């Protein structure tokens, strides 16, 4: 379950006097477990900031934020790493580690969690086969196309079977067939209990996969339907 209660976000001003402007204002909504939500809105509306709050990259400046049952505003800092391991993130810019192979990038969440190497090897090989990169296991990100990198990023986000999956424009570099496969995966994960939030500008994709949406404009939630 994800709950926003009057959440505001203001980034810390670095090297500037005074307070920086608030980028999110009074955001309140609740996402029960296992739901699928689009996150829609024009560029600069605050979609990425809202997602950053969800995957605990920033803390709210005010209000209460509850992620997977944990009150993030009140939780001690040392409790957050374990919570982050239950959250999968697909970044718009992939954020793969350039010095690691596709295999090691996908294996990273499992190794951080301390999973046995035998299980890591089996799960990662299967996942890379599923996203169509079985023959690119040892390739480094610089040797992969944009679409391949995005598929590695998706594999890394779902490999640990997260309870919350957050994706920022996950189909931006995928062709239609790959995008459809990804959407089927996301719906399947949602059906199995994962809460899925996908931010996108792709109206055709939203039209093909109708689902409730959070609408953001100028840092405010203007609709949740």
């Amino acid at each position: 379950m994800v709950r926003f209660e009057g959440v505001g976000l203001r980034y810390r001003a670095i090297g500037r006097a005074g307070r920086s402007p608030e980028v999110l204002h009074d955001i309140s909504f609740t996402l029960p477990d296992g739901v699928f939500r689009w996150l829609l809105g024009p560029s600069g509306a605050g979609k990425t900031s809202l997602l950053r709050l969800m995957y605990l990259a920033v803390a709210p400046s005010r209000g209460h934020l509850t992620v997977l049952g944990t009150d993030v505003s009140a939780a001690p800092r040392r409790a957050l790493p374990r919570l982050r391991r239950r959250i999968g993130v697909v970044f718009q810019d992939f954020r793969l580690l350039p010095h690691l192979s596709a295999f090691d990038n996908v294996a990273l969440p499992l190794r951080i969690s301390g999973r046995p190497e035998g299980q890591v090897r089996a799960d990662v090989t299967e996942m890379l086969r599923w996203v169509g990169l079985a023959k690119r296991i040892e390739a480094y990100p610089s040797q992969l196309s944009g679409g391949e990198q995005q598929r590695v990023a998706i594999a890394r986000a779902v490999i640990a079977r997260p309870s919350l999956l957050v994706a920022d424009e996950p189909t931006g570099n995928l062709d239609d067939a790959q995008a459809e496969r990804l959407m089927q995966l996301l719906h399947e994960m949602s059906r199995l209990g994962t809460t899925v939030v996908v931010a996108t500008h792709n109206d055709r994709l939203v039209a093909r996969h109708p689902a409730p949406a959070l609408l953001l404009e100028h840092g405010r939630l203007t609709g949740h339907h």
Partner: protein
Amino acid sequence: MTSVSLRPSGFDELGLRRALSDRLLPFLVAAMAFLAALALAGWVGAASLAREWQAGSGSSLTVQVPRPGDPAQRDSGPKDAPPKDAPPRDASEGDSDKASGSAAGGTRIERTLSLLAGTPGIDTARRLSDAQLTDLLRPWLGAGAGRLDLPLPAVVAVRLSDPATDLDALARRLSAEVPGVLVESHGTWVGRLTALARSLQACAGLALLLVVGVAAAVVAVATRSGLSARRAAIEIVHGLGATDGYIAGRFAARATLLATIGGAAGALLALPVLVALAGLAAPFAGGSVPAEQGVIAFLAALPTPIWASLVALPAGAAAIGFVTAQGTVRRWLRRMP
């Protein structure tokens, strides 16, 4: 449930092999370890000298007896010149240890030795032989000192069993019984030399502390540089749920390895220098220069505390690397949510 990480040993998710270079940091730590070895050797050497001087000369004194062959008498005779008919000194008197003369009836030297032998707190009182006296005077009078027929006093080397013996009282007693006797304690000089050695020891300790501080600063700067270079990777790993301990552990493992290599290299480089210094210092510290010329003989001449210091250097460097990297990374990570 605590899970055990079974990630492959060579797995370098943060790319630290390049961020914490295996060249600059070990080189700088090696330089620090070399300086630390010299400081440690100085500390050990100064402590050894102070101990040796205190134990050796600190409890000794010399007693000079003018006109040693004259009969002992309570009245003080002329002090400036011996009588012309003074009997020649008997060479056999030279090695008379703790000679107990016939009390007041013997010669002045016999009386002196007798008094010394009967004084509590004195271990031995030994008259120096003519040959030994000539040796003492050789730097001033040349090799022919013995043939000059100078009116030399007898010199008695006294070793105290109790360093707290009241030397002033002893001097007064000797002067009363054998007028003109001079008692010279080495204590003052030994005290000064010991103070000097202790100061040198303190300086070496201070230098060692400074070296440790600089080494920690070097590791901290290298670690911060690595943090800056790998900021993006750290943010990704942190976002995937890595704890501060996990990230700090990766940095600390790398810094510890590099510092250990540097420490071992520094200790190895310092070894020949220390062996040479130990050879030079051996005579002053009661040791001896190895009779055999050879690597093994010289290595064996190195005092045990210095060997222990050399072995401890890589371990010390490793500890500095580990603790500094852990502290630096954990402090840096606190800025992240």
